């Protein structure tokens, strides 16, 4: 990594065709796409190294974008485990009920294409962002991108609504370039300055808190029933003490990420500290047995975009494009959580549109607006739109309070054997719902849920 030396840039005006703000998955993808078309790219990162500011407890879903930018990406990238097992648990009262998806395992086979299953499109990858982002940015540097770390962008240079560079904090310096790609994360301060949105709000985001626990590789294989480099993701609904959100456990090679994702407006209304919730979740039955004797090694927190297309800003202006979390491209619908794949794909598309515009010498708002069209045609905005109603449905408080209790009560009665005659599911369900939820509300929720998912 080159040392931070922003003060040397001022004398070098016109040295860059494009500036990318933020060396996360979106920014590095944009930088690579531009560099591959022969443009001189400056990639700015405020951390000491790419990934230093990133926490991630999750899984990156497979997507083809990075392979187009770095040949052999999935074989070479430093991921931890290839996820073949996905568990969704509903926790209520003293019991939990789970749905387990297990992709066909093929662990004897050399890990072609990255996963240990034969179908990598069924696979996601757990990874550590300080390693992954750093490695990915190194690939960009190898392809000619200039990376400056320890560089915080303070603001855009704007003239008549057109962006023509950035101001770097502390250095009293500016760097000019005909196009800037803003990949500065969820708060999206760069796009806000350009007037593409009026500020991210509490009801748009979720707060993720995460504790990292160390265990041996064999210990994780055994506890989570995994083979080779296989990994598992566990999601839990009903462990958030009434706050909209969920808890998770994801396996890395020798560590387990344990955390919670909490809608910020709901957390604010409930008045409970997130680390207290995390402490109680870690001590609760589903988590405690999996983490027995594991050693706590790190804690982190971050905001995630969580409002579907509602929080996607205008995606470009004259001389400016926005990608990744900064563009609100991240969602969860309760079953699927995606973000990094959307970041990489949007970064790639932003970089390509910027490169075409540079080649034509037209960086106008009108020309760069083609980026939004590219995103609309790709899976990125298509998926976000497909699940917009489901994302809305996730704002229903009952999903996190009433339903976990009802499902647990029903399953407990279903399996209970106490010498009295058993009943069919209908009467059991009516009893579980009694006092919890009027049937009319249940039907309304089923209808809304159906529109979201079916």
């Amino acid at each position: 990594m080159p040392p931070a030396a922003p003060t040397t840039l001022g004398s070098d005006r016109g040295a860059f065709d494009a500036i990318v703000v933020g060396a996360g998955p979106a920014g590095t993808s944009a930088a690579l796409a531009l560099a591959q078309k022969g443009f001189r790219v400056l990639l700015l990162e405020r951390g000491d190294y790419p990934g230093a500011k990133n926490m991630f407890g999750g899984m990156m879903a497979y997507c083809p974008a990075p392979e187009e930018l770095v040949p052999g990406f999935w074989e070479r990238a430093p991921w931890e485990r290839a996820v073949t097992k996905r568990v969704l648990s509903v926790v209520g009262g003293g019991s939990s009920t789970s749905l387990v998806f297990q992709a066909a395992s093929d662990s004897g086979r050399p890990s072609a294409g990255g996963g240990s299953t034969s179908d990598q499109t069924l696979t996601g990858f757990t990874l550590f962002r300080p390693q992954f982002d750093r490695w990915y940015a190194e690939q960009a540097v190898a392809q000619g991108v200039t990376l400056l770390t320890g560089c915080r962008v303070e603001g855009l240079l704007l003239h008549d609504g057109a962006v023509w560079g950035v101001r770097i904090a502390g250095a009293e310096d500016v760097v000019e370039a005909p196009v800037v790609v803003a990949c500065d994360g969820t708060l999206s301060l760069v796009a806000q300055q350009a007037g593409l949105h009026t500020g991210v709000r509490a009801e748009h985001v979720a707060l993720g808190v995460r504790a990292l626990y160390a265990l041996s590789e064999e210990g994780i294989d055994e506890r989570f029933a995994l083979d080779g480099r296989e990994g598992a993701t566990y999601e839990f609904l009903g462990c958030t003490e009434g706050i909209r959100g969920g808890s998770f456990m994801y396996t890395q090679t020798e560590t387990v990420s344990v955390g919670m994702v909490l809608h910020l407006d709901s957390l604010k209304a409930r008045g409970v500290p997130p680390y207290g919730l995390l402490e109680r979740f870690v001590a609760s039955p589903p988590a405690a047995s999996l983490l027995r004797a594991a050693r706590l090694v790190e804690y982190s927190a971050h905001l995630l975009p969580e409002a579907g297309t509602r929080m996607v800003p205008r995606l470009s202006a004259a001389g400016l494009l926005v990608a990744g979390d900064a563009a609100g491209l991240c969602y969860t619908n309760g079953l699927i959580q995606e973000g990094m794949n959307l970041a990489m794909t949007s970064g790639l598309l932003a970089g390509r549109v910027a490169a075409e515009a540079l080649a034509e010498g037209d960086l106008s708002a009108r020309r760069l607006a083609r980026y939004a069209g590219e995103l609309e045609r790709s899976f990125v905005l298509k998926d976000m739109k497909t699940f917009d109603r489901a994302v809305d449905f996730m704002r229903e408080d009952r999903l996190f309070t009433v339903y976990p209790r009802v499902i647990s009560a029903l399953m407990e009665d279903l399996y209970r054997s106490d010498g009295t005659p058993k009943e069919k599911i209908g009467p059991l369900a009516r009893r579980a719902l009694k006092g919890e939820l009027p049937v009319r509300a249940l039907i309304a929720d089923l209808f809304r849920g159906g529109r979201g998912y079916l």
Partner: protein
Amino acid sequence: MIVDDLFDLVSYRIHPEAHIVVDAEGCKDCAHRACTFSCPARCYTWSEERARVEFAYEACLECGTCLLVCDRKAVDWHYPPGGYGVRFRLT
């Protein structure tokens, strides 16, 4: 796990100047004081003695929660200068 352990495990390079400035006068009569329980790094505390919110920037995780839960615009929020602030090693 106990909560205090969490905070001991975070590493930082602390800049001598605060990157977030809180207008403790402006938020004196805030009804919810959401910053004091929402901040995942415990940077905000309510001081009964001084009857105001106290803020310490050193343990900040740079998430932006305080900026978004404050409805009095009392939080002047910036990332720390380049190279400073929280440094995740493992995550």
